[in-house]
C-alpha cells in the first residue's frame, strides 16, 4: 500500500482516480444513479463506489436496464450484491416497455438499440441527473474520445464535436433541468486492470466468467451456449466444450470462448496472452459497421 518512495502502483492510481470521480458526482449532482448490469466492469465500479463512501452506505441507487434476455446467473448475482450493500435497485424493463408499446422488438432479435429509450424513460421518470457507466476508453474508438463527465442534452444525446473541455481533475457537473451527465469512473482502466483488480481485491463475480463445460453451438465462427434464448438451428450440432464468457451481455447475443481458466488468475493469464479485443471477439452487434458505437452513443446509448 504505502511505499517508501510515495509512489502508487497503476491499480492504486486508477482506484484513487475513480473514487475521486464518484465522490465528486455525489457531492455535486443531485440525483445520481449507478448502472449495474452484473457484468465485471459494473461490479468493479460498484465496489469502488462502496469504498468511496465506506463505512457509510452508497448514497445513491443502482439501476439495471433489464432486456429480459439475461443470463439467470447474472440476475442472481445482481440481487445478491445489491442486498449485501443495502442499496436500492431500480429496474428499467425492456419487456415491460415492449408490452406497453413504447418500444418495438427489432427483427434481428437484438434489444441493444431499444434499451436506449427504456433507459432514457427511466432517467426521466426518476429524475436522475447523473448516470454512472462502467465504460472504458480502451474498449472502442468512440469511447476513447469521451470525457469522464460526458454531458447529455435533454434527449440523452452525445455531441462528440461539442464536448466540454476537461482539465486536470476539475470536473464540470453543471446542468440545466432535463439535462444529465454520464459519468465514466473507469475511463482509464484497461480490461487487464479490471481483472487484476478483481483478483487483488478478491471481488466476487458471476460464475459465467470462469471456464466450465457447457453445451454450445458454433455459429458464424462464434460459440454460443445453448440456453433458453439460444436453441440449435437446423444443421447446427450441439457439442460440449469448456468455455467462459469475456463479457456478459444479452444471453441471445453473447458468445463464449474456449478456455480452461477456472480461476481469476488463469483468466488474467489467458487475457495477457490473447490478442483479441473483447468486444470484437464476442459481441455480434458491434460488427455491423466501424462507426456502430459512435452512432449508438449519439442516440443516448452508453
Amino acid at each position, binding site marked *: 500500500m504505502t511505499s517508501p518512495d510515495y509512489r502508487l502502483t*497503476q491499480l492504486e492510481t486508477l482506484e484513487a482516480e475513480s*473514487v475521486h470521480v464518484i*465522490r465528486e458526482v455525489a457531492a455535486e449532482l443531485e440525483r445520481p444513479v449507478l448502472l449495474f448490469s452484473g457484468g465485471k466492469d459494473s461490479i468493479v465500479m460498484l465496489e469502488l463506489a462502496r469504498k468511496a463512501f465506506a463505512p457509510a452506505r452508497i448514497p445513491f441507487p443502482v439501476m439495471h436496464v433489464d432486456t429480459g434476455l439475461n443470463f439467470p446467473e447474472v440476475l442472481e448475482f445482481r440481487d445478491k450484491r445489491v442486498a449485501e450493500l443495502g442499496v436500492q435497485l431500480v429496474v428499467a424493463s425492456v419487456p415491460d416497455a415492449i408490452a406497453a408499446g413504447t418500444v418495438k422488438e427489432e427483427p434481428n432479435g437484438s434489444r441493444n438499440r431499444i434499451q436506449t429509450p427504456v433507459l432514457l424513460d427511466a432517467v426521466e421518470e426518476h429524475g436522475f441527473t447523473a448516470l454512472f457507466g462502467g465504460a472504458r476508453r*480502451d474498449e472502442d*474508438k468512440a469511447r476513447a474520445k469521451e470525457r469522464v463527465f460526458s454531458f447529455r442534452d435533454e434527449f440523452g444525446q452525445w455531441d462528440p464535436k461539442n464536448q466540454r473541455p476537461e482539465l486536470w*481533475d476539475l470536473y464540470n457537473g453543471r446542468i440545466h433541468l432535463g439535462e444529465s451527465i454520464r459519468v465514466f469512473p473507469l475511463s482509464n482502466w484497461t480490461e487487464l486492470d479490471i481483472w487484476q483488480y478483481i483478483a487483488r481485491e478478491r471481488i466476487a463475480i458471476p460464475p459465467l466468467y470462469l471456464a466450465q463445460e457447457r453445451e454450445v453451438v*458454433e455459429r458464424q465462427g462464434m460459440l454460443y451456449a445453448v440456453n433458453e434464448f439460444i436453441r440449435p438451428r437446423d444443421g447446427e450440432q450441439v457439442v460440449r466444450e469448456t468455455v467462459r464468457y469475456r463479457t456478459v451481455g444479452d444471453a441471445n447475443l453473447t458468445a463464449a470462448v474456449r478456455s480452461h481458466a477456472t480461476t481469476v488468475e488463469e483468466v488474467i*493469464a489467458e487475457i495477457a496472452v490473447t490478442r483479441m479485443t473483447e468486444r*470484437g471477439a464476442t459481441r455480434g452487434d458491434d460488427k455491423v459497421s466501424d462507426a456502430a458505437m459512435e452512432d449508438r452513443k449519439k442516440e443516448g446509448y452508453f
Partner: protein
Amino acid sequence: MAVSPGAAQPGIHPAEEAVVDVHSPVAEHVVELATARKDILRIATAGSVDDGKSTLIGRLLYDSKAVFEDQYEAVARASKGDFVDLALLTDGLRAEREQGITIDVAYRYFSTPRRTFILADTPGHVQYTRNMVTGASTADLAIVLVDARKGLLEQSRRHAFLASLLRVPHLVVAVNKMDLVGWSEETFERISDEFSAFAAKLQVPDLTVVPISALHGDNVVTHSPNTPWYEGPTLLHHLEHVHVAGDRNLTDPRFPVQYVIRPQSDEFHDYRGYAGTVGSGVLRVGDEVQVLPSGLTTTISGIDGPRGPVDEAFAPMSVTMRLADDLDVSRGDLICRPGNAPQVTQDLDALVCWMADEPLRPRQRLAVKHTTRSVRAVVKELSYRLDVNTLHRDLEAGELGLNDIGRVRLRTTQPLFVDDYLRNRVTGRFILVDEATNATVGAGMLTPAG
C-alpha cells in the same frame, strides 16, 4: 520496417483465441510482464497529420503489442498503398476519418514490463489549442513532433510553450522523418540546438531530443542502425525510464475536503470523516493540522484508505480523514499544516486559456471551480494577451478569443486557498464556467501577483 499487409491473416477465429496453455513458460513470462507492479506515466502528444504523429502513436501501440489482432486487421483492410498505415489505429470519430484530421483529445493505453502509459493524443493546429491544453493538463511528459525536413516551425514552438505553461515536467522532441533527410546528423543537431535555445527561455526543466522515423520504427523501440552517431535512448526507453518521482510536491500538505462521510448507523454512530484526494504533501495520523477557512487547528486521529486504516496519505491517494476535534468542516474546506498554509485570497492573478467562442472581457461574471470549491468571480482586468507563437505580450488587448491565452485578474465572491501553479499544480489551477450555458470556458493557472 514497414509492416506488410500479408502479415495479417484474413478472417478471425474468435472461438479459438482464448485457448492457451497458461502454464507454459512463454505464457508465464507474458503474465509476469503484464501483471508486474508498475506505475503510470501520463503522456501528451501534439501534432498534425503531416508531422506523422498518428503514425508514431500507432507505432508505439503496435510495437508494444497494445494492438489486438482484430484492430490490426481492420486497419490493414482500410490501408491504401503497400504497407499497413499504423496511423489509422488512432483515428477515432467518423468526422475525423472523413476529414483526415484529429478534432479532439483521444486517450490511448499501452504498457511495457516497466510502465503503463496513458497517452492523450491531441490535434496540433492552432484552432485546437484548447484540446492541447486539456491533454497537457494531466501529463507527466509531453512529446513534441518536429518534421526533420522542415525544422522548427511555429507549431512546434507553440506546442513546447503550451507544455511549459501547463508545467508538464518532461519534454521530448521527436525529430521525425529522419529517413527523408538521409539520416543527417547535422540536420538533427541543428534542430536540437535550435530547440534547446528556445526551451531555455521557457524554463523547461527536462528536455530530451530523439531522432526517429515513426514510419519505419527507427529509434522508437529499438536503436536504429541508421543513426550510429546517436547515443541517446530510444523514445520508448526514455518513456520507460524517465524519473518522475521527484515531480510531485511532497512538501506542502493540501487536502481539499470533497465529501463528508457520516454513516449514522448503529455500528458507526459517531463516525465523521472528511473524504478527499490528497493534493500534495504527506499527511500522517497524529499530525497537527489547520482547517481553512476557519483557521482552527486539530490533529488527525485517523486516515481511512481504500483497504482500511493507514498511517499516512500522500498525493494522489483518495482517503478519508478523521479529526480529533468536532469542528464544522464541509466540502470546499481545506486541511493543511498550521505553519504551511496556502494563501487565502479573493484576488486571483492567472494565465487563462480561453476556450469559448464568446470572448472573455473585463467585467464579465463567471463561475470558478478551484479544488472542491465553487465560487463566482468577476474579471477585473485583462493585463495582456500572449501570442502563443512568438510569446509577445499584447498589452492593448481588450479581450481573449477562443484559444487565446492571457493574463487575467479575477475577484471572487468567497476566498480561495491558493498556491502558485509553479509550486503546486493542484491548488494553483482552476476552471472557468459560463453560468448561463454551463460550458467550461477557460482554464487558469495562478501566477504571483504583480
